[in-house]
């Protein structure tokens, strides 16, 4: 053999080698699904679960891969197929009946590892916000929270998130091999898909609990601010706690959650759990109705992610009018009861 021929053969060998590693990488990428944690309450999916499933599908489309969902004690996971999930890992274990951040994070981690997932998606519910940083550490995953859009690029993996309590957006890249994204509630919406998900049981190891729930205090008949499509919020303009009857009635008619400004909770007129704003709960509802709230910058920051804002205030100069879509300059004690009647009539017609 001439040295030239040996050299050529060597080149051919190198090329074949390159092609086969390329094919291997391609195949690997294909089997690495996007993993999404679809949370439920009393066996039923929360709305955020369907939203993060929709988001996961968008990411999977960009990566040319599939979506695997992990559920914990969910009675029926078939709905997930309608939101783009290809495969469901169902974890059923009475030890996980009460939420435990460490254990739940560990379950999701094991599911991600089993699937070889490179992108893991969670919601921004209180529970998911609690477990996500533990999961990030467990997976050595770079973590972006409050993400509001599908990635603008998957290489580098680039997402848009809210910062400065909705006063700005931050474009962030995640640089690690495994990536964790927490999607802001009500930012991406539900995207229906025609599909069905295959389901399998998954029995991960459950770690010992070091934080144990003693009691839960939750009104089961009320919508929470986090889950509500409509939030009715009232401020110091209501003069005193005895005047909240009409606020609750308005919320009732609309199927809305009730909220309040900070001074109202500081004065003890309403519970702290209703305080919304920069230092309270964030609100990202479809409709936010502010009654007797001036619209201080700290209040607006926390509720600005709501899609449509209505203000009812006696003072036409109140800053809230600059942030609102619709406004009524008027006395809440007249406008709210009248609005309740109009809405009742409207609902009766529907």
């Amino acid at each position: 053999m001439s040295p030239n021929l040996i050299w050529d053969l060597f080149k051919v060998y190198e090329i074949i080698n390159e092609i086969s590693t390329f094919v291997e990488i391609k195949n690997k990428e294909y089997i690495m699904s996007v993993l999404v944690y679809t949370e439920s309450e009393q066996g039923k999916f929360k709305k955020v679960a369907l939203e993060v499933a929709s988001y996961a599908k968008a990411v999977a489309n960009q990566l040319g891969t599939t979506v695997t969902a992990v559920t914990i004690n969910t009675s029926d996971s078939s709905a997930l197929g309608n939101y783009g999930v290809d495969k469901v890992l169902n974890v059923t274990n009475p030890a996980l009946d009460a939420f435990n951040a460490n254990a739940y994070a560990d379950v999701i981690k094991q599911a991600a590892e089993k699937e070889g997932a490179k992108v893991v998606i969670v919601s921004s519910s209180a529970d998911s916000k609690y477990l996500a940083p533990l999961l990030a550490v467990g997976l050595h995953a770079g973590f972006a929270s409050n993400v509001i859009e599908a990635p603008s690029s998957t290489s580098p993996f680039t997402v848009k998130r809210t910062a400065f309590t909705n006063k700005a957006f931050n474009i962030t890249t995640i640089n690690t091999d495994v990536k964790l994204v927490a999607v802001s509630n009500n930012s991406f919406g539900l995207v229906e898909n025609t599909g069905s998900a295959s389901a399998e049981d998954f029995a991960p190891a459950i770690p010992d609990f070091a934080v144990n729930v003693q009691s839960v205090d939750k009104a089961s008949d009320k919508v929470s601010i986090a889950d509500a499509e409509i939030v009715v919020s009232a401020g110091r303009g209501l003069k005193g706690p005895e005047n909240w009857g009409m606020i609750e009635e308005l919320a009732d008619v609309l199927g809305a959650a009730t909220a309040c400004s900070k001074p109202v909770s500081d004065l003890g007129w309403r519970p702290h759990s209703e305080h919304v704003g920069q230092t309270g709960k964030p609100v990202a509802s479809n409709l936010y109705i502010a009654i007797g709230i001036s619209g201080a910058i700290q209040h607006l920051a926390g509720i600005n992610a709501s899609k449509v804002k209505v203000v009812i205030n006696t003072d036409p100069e109140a800053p809230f009018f600059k942030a609102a879509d619709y406004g009524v300059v008027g006395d809440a004690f007249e406008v709210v009861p009248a609005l309740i009647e109009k809405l009742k009539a409207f609902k009766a017609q529907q």
Partner: protein
Amino acid sequence: MKILVCISHVPDTTSKINFTEGDTKFDTNGVQFVINPNDEFGLTRAMWFKEKQGATVTVVNVGGPETEPTLRKALAIGADEAIRVNTEATDGFAVAKQLTKVIQDGGYDLVIAGRESIDYNGGMVPGMIAGLTNANFVNNCISLEIEGTNATATREIDGGKETVTTALPLVIGGQKGLVEESDLRIPNMRGIMMARKKPLQVVEPVTTESETTSVSFEKPAPKGAVTLVAPDNLDELVSLLHNEAKVI
């Protein structure tokens, strides 16, 4: 009990948010910096542990020299000593890594952080330090009692609250409720004088990888004008919400 309170140095809540250097950096021009509100509730709770249960309270910040006035304020409120890790806070994980080193060196029983800082709103530092130091963790914590090494905490959940028991070492992500607004302390002259003599130790950072990178910032598009509806024409409001906004 040794308590570490993590203090984030953030723009005052009334600040106008602007960016410089091609929208890559927060513009600190004319901005007042304060103790992150969630951290201030935690610091005040720590003072109660100090006064009622003889705890020692260290405050820590990861940041450049410009954050020292914020740490001095925490000392004036009553913390015993302060630590500044001398590096820019680039992302939540990098901050958690620096704090982990401080926690391991100091052997703290309880670490109080805020549920989130009001600048980057990451909400990840407390959980990450719990994960990195293998401590127990309670997020959105609105009440905390400690007896010996046992802890009882209440955390806010969506639509309610939940009481849990756990043990030290513990990390909490705290918020209003740990103490009330009216319990917050404004430093008095004596506190400010004493703060000057309290130790503020500057430590050099450990090396960390950068798991995420902030590329740029954007501001929300300006809002259109409000549509006003007369108080005696509420049918119009109902109709707009139904037909135009499509939210009812």
